[in-house]
């Protein structure tokens, strides 16, 4: 088991390092320079040059990469060119919007998908099975940003139950903050829940055809008991893979949803900093998203070993 974890950690660190290299190189070649952006239309040449020096933009690329990378390791992401505040703080409060949103959506998706998937699988071919399948087909097909617009139209404007967007901040009370994250979470959760339901159902159906289910039935377990006690856990492996993959979809999807609901999350920060060529912020935020995805995949790998003893390596 230890060997398994050690190997996975090694891979994780290597992926992060290569990712940081790829991110820095792709973003460094971005045309447009933050200094001239900040000084606006009729700034003179020398003022722009002065600002570049002040921001340290004139140092060589490898030097800047090294300072950024060493900063990453110690948690100091450097100072933003346009905001002149430490990137870490900016990203910190934005993380407190994007992360809860992603988790809220994942929880919602799982709470919907598990019962629906299991219910549909246990009543294969029945009406509920067909209805669930039809709904998931729709859920997968709906573009979530369009669904978000419809949610705003219905719940925020017509019924006024929710605010149309914006984030009051956690100090305005957990209840208020969660309320403002509800519509975006639903919009994000819908496609994920649909995909997860379909995977859950098909994976369960495969396992129900296995021989050991027949053994369980021969032991005297009823159809439902065999499903809950034996099939469910075996069906978890493919489901876990999809959940891992989905987390990265969730983060990506959040970037668009944050736009529709004007939430001050990491997604909008990326857009704003790309527009203002605040390269150091873009690089740091991308790295944080990559770190989140890689950590989740690592957690999923560990969960595999917990769910399926065969992966734990010989005793």
């Amino acid at each position: 088991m230890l060997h398994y974890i050690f190997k996975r950690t090694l891979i994780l660190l290597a992926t992060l390092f290569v990712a940081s290299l790829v991110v820095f190189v792709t973003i460094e070649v971005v045309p447009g320079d933050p200094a001239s952006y900040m000084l606006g239309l009729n700034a003179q040449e020398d003022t722009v040059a002065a600002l570049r020096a002040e921001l340290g933009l004139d140092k060589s690329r490898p030097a800047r990469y090294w300072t950024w990378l060493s900063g990453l390791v110690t948690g100091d992401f450097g100072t933003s060119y346009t905001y002149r505040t430490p990137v870490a703080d900016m990203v910190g409060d934005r993380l407190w919007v994007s992360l809860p949103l992603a988790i809220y959506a994942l929880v919602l998706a799982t709470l919907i998908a598990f019962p629906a998937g299991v219910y549909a699988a246990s009543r294969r071919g029945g009406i509920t099975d067909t209805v669930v399948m039809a709904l998931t087909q729709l859920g997968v097909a709906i573009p979530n940003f369009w669904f978000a617009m419809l949610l705003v139209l219905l719940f925020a404007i017509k019924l006024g139950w929710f605010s149309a967007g914006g984030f009051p901040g956690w100090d305005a009370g957990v209840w208020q903050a969660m309320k403002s994250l509800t519509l975006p979470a639903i919009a994000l959760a819908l496609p994920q829940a649909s995909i997860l339901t379909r995977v859950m159902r098909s994976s369960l159906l495969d396992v129900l055809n296995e021989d050991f289910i027949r053994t369980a039935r021969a032991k005297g377990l009823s159809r439902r008991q065999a499903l809950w006690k034996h099939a469910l856990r075996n069906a978890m492996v493919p489901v876990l893979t999809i959940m891992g993959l989905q987390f990265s979809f969730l983060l990506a999807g959040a970037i668009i949803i944050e736009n529709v609901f004007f939430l001050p999350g990491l997604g909008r920060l990326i857009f704003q900093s790309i527009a203002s060529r605040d390269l150091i912020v873009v690089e740091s935020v991308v790295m944080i998203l990559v770190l989140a995805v890689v950590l989740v995949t690592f957690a999923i790998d560990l969960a595999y070993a917990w769910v399926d003893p065969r992966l734990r390596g010989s005793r």
Partner: protein
Amino acid sequence: MSDSLLRLDKVNLSIHETPILHDVSLQVHAGSVLGIIGESGSGKSMTAFSILQLLPQGAVCSGNIHFDGMQINNLSEEQLCHIRGNEIGMVFQEPMTALNPVQNIGAQVAECIALHKSVSRSQALTQAAAVLERVGLPNNEFPLTRYPHELSGGQRQRVVIAIAVALEPKLLIADEPTTALDVTTQAEILALLKQLVVESDMAMMLITHDLAVVSEVADNLVIMRDGRVLDHGPTRTVFNELKHPYTRALYDASSHTPERNASIEQVVPLVELTDLVCEYPMARRSLFEPRKMFRAVNQVSLSIFSGESVGLVGESGCGKSTLAKALLGLSPIVSGRIMLRGEQVHSGVKVSNKVRREMQVVFQDPYSSFNPRHRVGRLIAEPLHLLENQPDKHQRVKLIRVTLESVGLDGEDANKYIHEFSGGQRQRIAIARALIIKPALIILDEAVSALDVSVRAQVLDLLAELSDSHELAYLFISHDLSVVRSITDRVLVMKQGQIVERGDTDSVFISPEHNYTKTLLAAAPQLPQSNAEASRI
């Protein structure tokens, strides 16, 4: 008829409108063993499942099934659940997949106990440990926390049996319990089953396609074909009278020995191996230890003369397949020399086409050895790729037709797809594929083990004919001693990567020297002599 524990009369079953069982009637008495014999597709397993009403979706079952004085085929699901595992236990064919891979063996056995008896979890576990001891899995060697993937096929089958007999059921149904196991393990499992029947006065229904197995274990027999019971009665009388023509055909096929004139020329050996060693890496235990290598073939030397048919027997895992693959250049060799017609062949890495032209192979599983996307013509013509001067289109078509006809198939079959053929026909095609470039040696790796008895006989006859007409040498690899005995001139017995005994087939079978060979021969079930007038085909 009075004290029969289980009685089926006129049981009919159809799934999605396709009829499976027709008026099946049989009975089992307490403390006795009923053997059900039939080839694949005869409905024997379905009979077992209809007893427990564990039928797939869309199954319609009629007629009545009496068990222990009660009619059980119209009971509610809840009542049936009470009987399953408690009154009737069941053992299945495939031990490798019969257990839940993510649950340890203790929990899986205890679950059955806790389900039917109101006992605490710990009590259920102690009872489970007792049952496991009883089926030959001592707790010190096999603790309850072991997982199925850490056990061998035989050990897993013992766990399945433990589950089935944990609650001392009145009836145990064993559906082909030993088909997937080695000869020695098969003998142990059959002995265990017999002992359990005697100890707890349990009735057993043993389902198999192997006449020899059932003849040693069952008190009464039922012979089924296409969902119908053709013959039944006490084992002895059924074997002696061979009343029903199908029973007679089955009996003859099982003891069939093809006509062969063993012409052996003691000239330069066609193929000679000296001190061959093959290894492959094992799973890495921990990062720091170097990968341990498993030595599958350990200093093996043998020689095969052209036209000769050599048998290689041994249990699974003894390295016989690795040896075959090494010979064909499909797996790497650590050391040792391979000579073909006196010429050094294997120089370590690649095997030249010249050598491959001399040797071809036929595999075990007819359903896996063909690319479903290609037509038969293209399938059997694949080895032509080895020839220096490729035959032109016209020659190629003629060659394909001739080769197909030589294995008893029709020239037109060339443009059909493989899924249009039965198991037996597919092995004929596999042999055609091997024959097309007229090799000197064909390696048959368990070529007939997957076939039904009657089909197996035909394929063995074909091989015998071909070896005479085409001056062919065979290396016949199998774990089934009776088949090897009927077709080979010389035999080599292999154990843990080494050849422990070699010699003429008859002398080795009649007076084996090495005690491993002795245990092997003893374990193989013998077909009783039938005093019915033996009819020759």
